[in-house]
């Protein structure tokens, strides 16, 4: 079977994929790009609100713009999908910069819904006690005020809130929408930076434990900058190899179907060393974003230090976007190299699953525990990525959708359990929570069981889908190791349940704050999606299955 025949399993030829030969007036398909454009527009409006609207009204104005735009963008995604852009009309838009196809639309829809739910947790203002008569959220009163300084006290007293988080969130979402849809390497890189930079900032904005939050942001920024640099270097080498940034052209050069050599690059084109090193560096940058071992070191610190709503958003949406981009790079750009990348990804997946599950056992902080759990889950998803068959794509899409709602919901519950110092994240503080607040503990137990992959939760359906795809793709040992690490991982999820339900509550233990309808909605959506995807996943599996073909 020739290489192209294999790829045609998961890619279809684009109808309008002529290479850019001369500079034309740019032709932009505004309709097809509507989801992204709406979100970018909302982000810009958000910035203007910060400049023009009085401080008292900003929160409401920002909430309104953000909610409406995310909902509108999601509606646009649905409309595009209903119009057939996910299947028959899939194609390349914006002069070859972006793909509008099934995986892109599915992931964009997932990211938008996740962001909408996360937005509610961002906007929550009833959990922290009122400061000087003002309701406050999880974010610092004034980011520029040094922690513990007089300036900070003045800002708190004046009732400042950082409403800039809303436009930052919208910019991050915009970047994430582009990231899995990017169809050339430059767009990929720009999208990477557009969603990373707001996240670095958001991580630093915690109202409580500000130093820890800032430390997390610095770590994230430094390591993220390294990863970006690697990615960029990889892109440069790939350009040197193929003479093009376009996914389709690089893939053709890898396959050897394109022969014309750009004169300026005659010395480097077709040099396999450039291809291998470039691909490795590019994939490395993406693996950093998904938090796969050995590029996971930032995850626990950042998850722990960042304000919990940001952690929830980041853990869910970043993973969706980054896995989307990784899938597209591996399946569209580098299918011809799969005999080279599959063994490496095998090793990465195995180490990621095992390390995530084993290290999580020793954690004593709930946010760090969830961070290591997210690493283990990255490993499970990688098992589906490695399948290298159409089921691989659709199972990963399904898993990402299932996982992101569980994650946002779980972190939303974490924001509720509080004591005098803010959120009580140390595990020992959670002892006996089930006695005190059975409902909260039960909801968190549902999320933990979904993480553990117990049947009738979305986690099980997702895990089964990726393992099935991996087994069909010939990766049976990977499935066995995945199952073993699931068993290990189950141990620490169960440990938290034991702690909540079977331990005596501590007399000075934390209380469960009563949230506003915003957080309640976020949690309720999380539980509902978890159970629906667990009990009746067929519709969503069909959706992911229909969306499982990349355009080239």
């Amino acid at each position, binding site marked *: 079977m020739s290489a192209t025949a294999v790829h045609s399993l998961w890619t279809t030829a684009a109808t309008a994929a002529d290479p850019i030969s001369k500079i034309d007036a740019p032709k932009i398909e505004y309709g097809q790009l509507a989801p992204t454009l709406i979100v970018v527009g909302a982000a810009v409006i958000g910035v203007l609100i910060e400049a023009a609207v009085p401080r008292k009204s900003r929160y409401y104005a920002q909430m309104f713009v953000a909610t409406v735009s995310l909902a509108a963008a999601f509606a646009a995604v649905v409309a595009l999908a209903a119009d057939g852009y996910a299947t028959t009309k899939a194609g390349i838009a914006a002069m070859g910069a972006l793909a509008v196809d099934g995986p892109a639309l599915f992931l964009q829809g997932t990211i938008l819904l996740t962001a909408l739910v996360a937005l509610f947790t961002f906007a929550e203002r009833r959990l922290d006690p009122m400061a000087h008569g003002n309701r406050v959220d999880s974010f610092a009163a004034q980011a520029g005020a040094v922690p513990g300084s007089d300036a900070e006290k003045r800002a708190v007293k004046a009732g400042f809130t950082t409403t800039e988080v809303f436009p930052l969130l919208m910019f991050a979402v915009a970047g994430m929408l582009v990231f899995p849809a990017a169809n050339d390497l430059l767009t990929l890189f720009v999208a990477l930076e557009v969603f990373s930079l707001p996240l670095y900032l958001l991580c630093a904005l915690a109202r409580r434990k500000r130093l820890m939050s800032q430390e997390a942001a610095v770590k994230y920024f430094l390591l993220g900058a390294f990863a970006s640099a690697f990615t960029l270097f990889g892109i440069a080498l790939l350009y040197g190899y193929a003479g093009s940034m376009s996914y389709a052209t690089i893939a053709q050069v890898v396959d050897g179907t394109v022969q014309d050599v750009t004169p300026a690059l005659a010395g480097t084109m077709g040099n396999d060393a450039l291809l291998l090193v470039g691909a490795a560096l590019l994939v490395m940058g993406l693996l950093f974003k998904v938090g796969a071992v050995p590029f996971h070191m930032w995850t626990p610190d950042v998850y722990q230090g960042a304000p919990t709503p940001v952690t929830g958003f980041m853990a869910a949406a970043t993973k969706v976007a980054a896995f989307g981009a990784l899938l597209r790079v591996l399946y569209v750009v580098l299918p011809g190299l799969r005999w080279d990348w599959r063994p490496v990804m095998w090793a990465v997946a195995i180490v990621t699953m095992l390390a995530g599950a084993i290290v999580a056992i020793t954690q004593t902080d709930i946010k760090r525990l969830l961070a290591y759990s997210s690493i283990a889950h990255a490993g499970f998803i990688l098992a589906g990525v490695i399948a290298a068959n159409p089921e691989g794509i659709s199972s990963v899409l399904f898993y990402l959708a299932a996982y992101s709602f569980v994650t946002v919901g779980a972190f939303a519950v974490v924001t509720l359990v509080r004591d005098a110092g803010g959120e009580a994240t140390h595990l020992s503080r959670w002892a006996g929570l089930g006695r005190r607040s059975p409902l909260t503990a039960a909801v968190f137990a549902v999320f933990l069981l979904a993480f553990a992959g*117990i049947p009738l939760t979305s986690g099980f359906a997702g895990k089964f889908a990726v393992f*099935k795809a991996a087994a069909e793709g010939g990766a*049976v040992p990977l499935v066995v190791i995945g199952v073993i690490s699931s068993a290990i991982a189950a141990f620490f999820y*169960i440990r938290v349940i034991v702690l909540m339900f079977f331990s005596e509550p501590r007399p000075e233990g934390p209380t469960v704050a009563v949230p506003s309808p915003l957080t309640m909605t976020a949690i309720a959506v999380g539980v509902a999606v978890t159970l629906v995807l667990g009990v009746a*996943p067929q519709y969503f*599996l069909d959706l992911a*299955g229909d969306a499982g073909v990349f355009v080239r």
Partner: protein
Amino acid sequence: MSFPLLTATAALPAVGAIATAAVPAARRTAAKWLALLFSLATLVLAIVVAVRFDPGGARYQLTESHSWIADFGVRYELGVDGIAVALIALTALLIPFIVLAGWHDADPLETGSRRWRPTQGFFALILAVEAMVILSFEATDVFLFYIFFEAMLIPMYFLIGGFGDRAHEHGEEKAATQRSYAAVKFLLYNLAGGLIMLAAVIGLYVVAGNFSLTEIAEARASGELTMATSTERWLFLGFFFAFAVKAPLWPLHTWLPNAMQESTAPVAVLITAVVDKVGTFAMLRFCLQLFPEASKWATPVILVLALVSIIYGALLAVGQRDIKRLIAYASISHFGFIIMGIFAMTSQGQSGATLYMVNHGISTAVLMLIAGFLISRRGSRLIADYGGVQKVAPVLAGTFLIGGLATLSLPGLAPFVSEFLVLVGTFTRYPVIGIIATFGIVLAALYTLVLYQRTMTGPVRPEVAKMPDLRVREIAVVAPLVVLLIFLGVYPKPVTDIVNPAVKQTMSDVERKDPQPEVEAAK
């Protein structure tokens, strides 16, 4: 479309679980009655299932089939054969007694939070387990079975970890620690088994392309579906491992003594008499049907492990100082007999094993529930703390003796028939193993009679002098079960009639490719 009887049988306790859980905190007595009502209604439906089932008819009856997750090839497929009917009846029969026996086990000691409702939770969880157990007996889709096989761990886990004996020799703090240890051990063992089975389930899908037991079995019979020998063996091992943990088979048994010791007596009965039966049942239904060649390949090893279970469990039972732990090890010994009967691959052996599942359920329930009543009176689980109880509480002692005699398979009581069948069935093909297994009975006599002698006979100890005899509620629990033990001991035909055709079919699945003469030899 006919009335979905099987779905209803499983759905009724599930609805009951939700209804019970929803009862307000102050109305806990209403919750108990509601749970009892639902369990009795389920029993009625189970009886209807047994009556509607025609032993001479098709292999799977009362079937239901609906599409569920087409992407995974999963269907909602239910159907019962004789073995399943017998076990569903056992389950539905035992649950009302378990509910009744555990009437006061989950009353809150102090009224803490108004929203903390342990009583409602306790009975709701029992009904939830019942629903899942019944569904796993009914499922003829491997995936559907797997889901309930796994999901029932969660309510079981909360039952073990959340509710323990009131009286604990080391105080409440230590008791809670030991309980949660037992619950976690139970969950991890079974989850590990289940996840290994998951790998095999995925493997089966890759090989067969769907999960329907009937379709796969047919395709294998017609030669449409062939498996490489090594594939079949690996898949068999994946399935068998999970069932052997659940059953439990030596050396995967160590969670059972902990779980039974720490949970309340009704929950201990639920574990050993109901939930564990899913393991042995699944060996018959899935291991033998799906992987006949591999089953035969593995038989020698499994028989030896079963033999070790019989002897080892019995020996350890002799040495126990804790009443509930003793019964747990006795159960391990009995599960050895059941597994031996299944894998002896003779029709007597398998009929005996199925009958054994039913009888062991009833006899263990009697023994364990009375032990629970005893323990709740004295506040200790240690054998050494008792003595002379028969003078103070003759009814309690008498029924306890009957339960004990049933455990040691006295002729005239139900377990004798099944144990005899298993031993005969094993002997005809594996005489040595049959002979060694007989020593298990001798040891059983030792541990039950010594238990009775130490606790019930001798001088009355001052601590038990004021011990009340069985109350009305407790007699209502014990008496029907004792009657049933005697009835099935004298007249086991109702059960064997239902079971035998199914066993013959299972036999023909396994023996299809190399007929053995042992059935004639046994006649």
